[in-house]
């Protein structure tokens, strides 16, 4: 009996590590106020850092996510990718979590709930109109803002290369 239980638990552990991260609302930080979130918009030493604003309801955002995900396997240098969801907090459980699991998202994800966008849109970037998707790329102490949809991983890598 004990041996049987050990084998079962071994396979459970194995399958858990073979499958990618299982998303639950517990691994998604929710920021009600931009001031608490702002620290995430700072570059990191020695690591390329990408912040993408998206939402499950945003078609172009969803379409370009795979290209960001692919960077984890194709980008040769250390990279951290943060996907900032503008979905509504009340949809975290029903929409965001299932989406992340279905698409096997490897990047980090947080949710920004702060509804007073006029107060913080300019703090993300003064040229941002408020439409999503947008992407910030931080590299070698520089930051570049992209208000556009990316159509391929190559296009993204090119964008990273353009940050000087």
């Amino acid at each position: 009996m004990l041996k049987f239980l050990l084998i079962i638990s071994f396979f459970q552990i194995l399958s858990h590590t073979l499958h990618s991260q299982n998303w639950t609302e517990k691994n998604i930080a929710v920021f009600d106020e931009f001031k608490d979130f702002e620290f995430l918009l700072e570059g990191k030493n020695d690591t390329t850092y990408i912040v993408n604003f998206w939402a499950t309801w945003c078609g172009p955002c969803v379409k370009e996510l795979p290209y960001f995900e692919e960077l984890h396997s194709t980008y040769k240098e250390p990279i951290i990718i943060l996907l900032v969801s503008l979905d509504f907090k009340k949809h975290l459980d029903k929409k965001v979590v299932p989406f992340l699991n279905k698409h096997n998202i490897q990047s980090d994800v947080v949710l920004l709930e702060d509804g007073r966008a006029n107060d913080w849109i300019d703090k993300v970037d003064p040229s941002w109109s408020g439409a999503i998707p947008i992407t910030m790329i931080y590299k070698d102490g520089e930051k570049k803002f992209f208000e556009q949809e990316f159509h391929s991983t190559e296009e993204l890598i090119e964008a990273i290369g353009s940050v000087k």
Partner: protein
Amino acid sequence: MKNSFASFFAIGALLPALFLIFGQTHGGYHVGDTVADFTLKSTSGNYVSLSDYKDAKGYIVTFTCNHCPYAIMYEDRFVELHNKYAPMGYPVIAINPNDPAVKPEDSFDNMAVRAAEKSFPFVYLFDDQQKLFPVFGATKTPHIYLLDGDMKVRYIGALDDSPKDPDAVEVKYVENAIAAIEAGEKIDPETTKAIGCSIKVADK
């Protein structure tokens, strides 16, 4: 008369379109600019121009659509806005700028369905071939341009400061701007920003 409008309109559309093609998104009207009149088809089947509103003291030009959750959250507020301000001379003029080939939910027929479902008291116009929104410089839905009686742009941006929760609204930007126009006072803020859905244009 119609011909000069048409050619003025065509020139007005070409320049901002060039701006957009070359990647700049700051073309379009700014506060203080005078808007060129336009004619678009409404869900009622009629063609509508700003000049049709003979008694208008202003126009609440509202780029909006069927599919965008942010636009949907504002629908009831747009209805209330029109019901309150159209009798005062400030009609809402809703315009869908999206390409139905990219977003079928935003087709002309679906617009008519939505207008009927929600009993829109305002016109809901279709920016056929997407020629008008680049002239304005609209970048998303919803995106509001408040014009005065001379068709001069007086305010650009969001309706209020709380898209997600109508009960949490603290500042009603458009209503305040209309009150300022009526009182001959300065509008502040003249522009605001808000989250919205990008305008859907087919990839070339």
